[in-house]
């Protein structure tokens, strides 16, 4: 283990958005100042996370123990490669999403905006808390906090649909976390008697029997239902009733990524890949994930509602990450870690585009979008780039992670799973590419023959367009310069990919 | 034979249990609220009987010292006769205690009596409150038959 520093920075990075709640609530009546507070907090948070990057890249970790809460168990923070990677993604995208949500919320004149930004900030704290958690207990704490803080966001509209969606959302998330994770957590605690601190080689080895390990693994995999592993995925499409910025940040990035992040942590930090390899039980999870990948891609093909199609795409993409982790080969794990970042950037672009389309035209369904590319060229250009990244085609970052995943599958000698990867990539392409294509080249001859001119465009307001352009560019940048991500992931698997 | 002996030497326990069960049966099965309270009283009285019978000692009297133990005028007057202060002398507490001879087996066990004084008081209090509640129930529902009251609650719904 390389050196470790003690520093308050990770705590601060977690708390900063929580502290921002106070000014946000107090400034509720003055929207500009309120949003100023949101931005300030977002930038400070990003700054704090970035400030830790050099230390982490140098191979050390940053730790801080807040206080002991249960015998031998503390609320503690520890920043390592994986946490850093996820923290970077979440905090950087928060800035972009903040801008976007201001545009979206004001564009649609939504009600209760103060509440919206308040819980937005709380959710971010929880996300970073999960990223920097040092042990399973702290992880669980922030995981639950995130479930509850996002509930008001999901049900923001407070109508019948939101009520049903919110109910599904909480039912799935709470019942799995209380029903599966909590007992698993306490079981681990009882069996090891340790502080459950994550380590690169895991800490479970030698404390439990093989059958207990399998049960635990499944409890964790299904318990962190935010990862959308089937059959506990249906909250995700249901939660799409939320306003689009919420879907974008939380359901494409924060919430679902927290789910897969937790599973990655369990695989690498709790069990340890070597131990799992010895036990030979990860294949079960791998096949469940593979099943999810294929089925969700097929479902996505049938969806006409754009946000729902993206949601099912997310379910599939998340399972890539789980699948990568379950393959246990170094390269696959690296791939799944980097895929967190790549998919986040790609998917958030797609969601923000969906939102921008809704703000500008009020259209939700793909069938209505024929020829829309001519009216909203920037949006659809960004959409196409995002789609490429999600599919894993150049010149986007998605290619990098996909490459690692596929080669990782070869390393693990899992030819069947390799085939799954390839099939699903084709499916991805099948449900994403036509949208952009038909927007620019509609079948309808009349639409197709309309001459294009910048003057006739009807883009959404600038607050919406800017962020999605930024993320689209980011997706391309990550293709050109993915090294630091790979380096962070490499810290976790022991190779310098 | 053994059973007979047990019955003859331990009859007090049998009696208390039988009485107690009569009370308990009334408390559970009676439909009339006042009868339940009567059952409760029987039930509590049985416990009092049990306690008091614990404290019984063969050949012992009530747990109050004999008068001449506490006022040992005779014993003292002989002793002090030559000084000529027979009439006036009131022996001090210490003197009495010094000469006090108490045979524990002479006196009944005082503790169960004390305890049962409490239990009696509690019984009275509970019975009183129970009767007050019954009166109020009668006032509100016009009946003290449990089934009729439940019926009227149901029909009111």
């Amino acid at each position: 283990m390389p050196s470790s520093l003690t520093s308050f920075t990770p705590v601060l990075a977690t708390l900063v958005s929580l502290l921002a709640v106070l000014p946000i609530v107090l400034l509720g009546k003055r929207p500009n100042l309120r949003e100023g507070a949101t931005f300030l907090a977002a930038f400070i948070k990003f700054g704090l996370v970035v400030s830790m990057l050099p230390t982490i890249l140098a191979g050390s970790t940053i730790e801080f123990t807040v206080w002991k809460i249960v015998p031998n168990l503390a609320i503690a923070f520890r920043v390592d490669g994986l946490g850093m990677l996820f923290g970077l993604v979440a905090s950087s995208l928060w800035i972009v999403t903040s801008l976007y949500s201001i545009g979206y919320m004001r564009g649609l004149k939504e009600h209760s905006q103060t509440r919206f930004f308040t819980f937005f900030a709380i959710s971010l704290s929880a996300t970073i808390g999960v990223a920097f958690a040092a042990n399973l207990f702290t992880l669980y704490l922030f995981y639950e906090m995130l479930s509850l803080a996002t509930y008001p966001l999901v049900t923001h509209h407070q109508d019948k649909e939101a009520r049903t969606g919110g109910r599904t959302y909480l039912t799935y998330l709470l019942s799995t976390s209380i029903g599966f994770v909590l007992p698993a957590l306490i079981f681990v605690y009882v069996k090891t008697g340790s502080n459950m601190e994550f380590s690169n080689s895991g800490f479970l080895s030698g404390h439990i029997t093989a059958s207990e390990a399998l049960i635990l693994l499944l409890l964790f995999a299904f318990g962190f239902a935010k990862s959308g592993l089937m059959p506990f995925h249906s909250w995700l499409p249901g939660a799409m009733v939320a306003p689009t910025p919420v879907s974008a940040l939380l359901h494409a990035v924060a919430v679902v990524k927290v789910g897969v992040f937790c599973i990655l942590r369990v695989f690498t930090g709790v069990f340890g890949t070597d131990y799992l390899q010895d036990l030979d039980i990860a294949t079960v999870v791998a096949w469940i994930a593979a099943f999810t990948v294929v089925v969700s891609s097929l479902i996505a093909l049938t969806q006409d509602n754009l946000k729902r199609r993206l949601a099912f795409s997310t379910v599939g993409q998340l399972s890539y990450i789980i699948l990568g982790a379950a393959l246990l080969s170094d390269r696959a794990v690296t791939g799944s870690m980097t895929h967190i970042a790549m998919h986040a950037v790609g998917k958030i672009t797609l969601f923000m585009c969906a939102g921008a389309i809704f703000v500008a035209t009020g259209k939700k369904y793909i069938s209505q979008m024929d020829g829309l590319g001519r009216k909203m060229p920037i949006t659809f250009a960004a959409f196409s780039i995002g789609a490429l990244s999600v599919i894993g085609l150049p010149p986007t970052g998605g290619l990098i992670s996909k490459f690692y995943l596929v080669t990782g599958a070869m390393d693990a000698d899992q030819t069947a799973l390799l085939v799954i990867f390839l099939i699903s990539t084709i499916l991805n392409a099948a449900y994403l590419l036509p949208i952009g294509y038909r927007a620019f080249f509609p079948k309808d001859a009349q639409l197709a023959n309309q001459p294009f001119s910048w003057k006739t465009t009807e883009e959404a307001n600038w607050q919406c367009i800017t962020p999605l352009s930024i993320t689209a560019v980011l997706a391309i940048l990550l293709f050109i310069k993915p090294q630091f991500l790979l380096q962070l992931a490499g810290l976790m698997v022991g190779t310098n990919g | 034979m053994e059973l007979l002996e047990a019955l003859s030497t331990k009859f007090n326990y049998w009696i208390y249990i039988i009485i107690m069960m009569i009370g308990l049966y009334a408390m559970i099965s009676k439909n009339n609220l006042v009868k339940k309270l009567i059952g409760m009283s029987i039930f509590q009285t049985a416990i009092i009987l049990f306690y008091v019978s614990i404290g019984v000692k063969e050949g012992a009297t009530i747990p109050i010292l004999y008068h001449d133990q506490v006022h040992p005028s005779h014993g003292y007057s002989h002793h002090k006769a030559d000084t000529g202060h027979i009439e006036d002398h009131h022996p001090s507490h210490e003197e009495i205690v010094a000469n006090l001879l108490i045979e524990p087996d002479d006196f009944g066990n005082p503790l169960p009596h004390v305890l049962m004084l409490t239990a009696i008081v509690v019984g009275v209090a509970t019975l009183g409150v129970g009767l007050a509640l019954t009166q109020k129930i009668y006032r509100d529902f016009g009946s003290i038959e449990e089934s009729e009251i439940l019926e009227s609650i149901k029909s009111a719904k």
Partner: protein
Amino acid sequence: MIDQSPALILLAPFLLAILLALLGIKREWLCFPLVIAGLAISVAASVVTLLRVIDEGTIQYFFGGWEPPFGINLRVDGLNALVALAVSTVSLLTAIYSKRAVPAETSDKVSQFYTLYLLSVTGLLGIVLTGDAFNLYVLIEISALTSYALIGMGSRRATLAAYKYLIMGTIGASFYLLGVGYLYIKTGSLNMYDIQEQIVANNLHGSPSIFVAFVVIIVGVWIKMAFFPLHSWLPNSYAYGPSTTSALLGPLVTKVMIYVMIRMILTVFGPEFAFDQLDWSNIIVWMSVIAILAASISALAQASLQKILAFLIIAEVGYMVGGVWLADKMGMIGSIYHIIADAFMTLCVFLFAGIIFTKTGRHDISAMEGLFTKMPLTMVGFLVGAFSLIGIPPTAGFFSKWYLIQGGISSGHYEYVAALLISSLINAVIFFRIIEIAYFGSKPAEGHGYHHNEEQKDGTMEASFSMLFPLLITAAVLLGIGLYNQEVVEIITNFVSQFNIGAIIL
């Protein structure tokens, strides 16, 4: 005065109850300050006592200067110092809440109500502190008699409920008394500690009398704590009584009785007898599993908030009985911690129910429509209580579940773990149903947007300060003893490790 602190805990409310009875009839305004004064002294004395216990270990206080077994003593160790503090704090908070509720709900009987209130608290505190088995009975009866009256002052249905409570309560208390008699007949002593010494010295563990005494006492206490299926008196009593009564009795009576059970098992009979020799863990843990599930499901079926809460109390009783009978150190610690945590979380939700009732005059959960905008602070308090009952970190309820589940796993009672988790989920359903109604309104608007809110923004109808303050304090306490649970658990652990229970401790 420091030496007197254990006695002052219960004598302060006692003395003020009497003064209140004498002075308060004509001067109604005097009642409330007197109640607060008495309970505040009690809380202060409890704090002092707890600190002393942490410092010096077990404290004894001899009434009349007679050492046990001849006289009656208070015997304060880590367990009852904590419980006493919880009891006095809960009653103080409820008293603050009652400032407006009591005159509204029991007009012209204010002074009687408060007299009974203080005496009830005295009884409960006495139960917790005493070291004498018979004295415990007397105090049980005091708290019971006052409860019957406090409940009977409520609505029409409350009288009937109080009657039922009286019959059941008397059976329970009499069983306890009988058990003490059985102990007395074999040991000749009434002091709890002395009884234990006599049992060990005379090797009475195999004696049928001690066995019957144990059964009778435990069953008696079960009746008093409403352990399923002996619970039938509880739901109506708490649902129809005045709201202050529910807020006082709901959190306290059952918890104090669980304390009595633990005290009997650990101090009087000894864990070796109760757990190892009898070996009933399996049966009783299964009983508690059934209790938890049955009560939770019954709670789910109720429409009135007070009734929901009443059934939740029964479920929580199941938690603690099960936790104790896991015969495991962690289970015991969890149960004791849960006594304290549960007192506050039940208080929290009962205070909420009381506030809603005062504001809307209704008990059913549809009364909670749109409360998030109308009473935001009240809802914050309620949320903390609800989260604690569900068991969401970092509230106290999460940690008590944590310890209980830990006990369940380390003693191998997985059925108990499952029951706890299922009941957590049922609680989640119950409370999110309420939260949904409060958030969406009972009939949510069709289609997009719920702009109703914005218009009513200024129309808040927050409860008065005297009602809101205790609610928020309770919520803060829940978070506090959640986050600092280690301090609390340390005291409990010190207490529990004197005894030889089950598995090793971490």
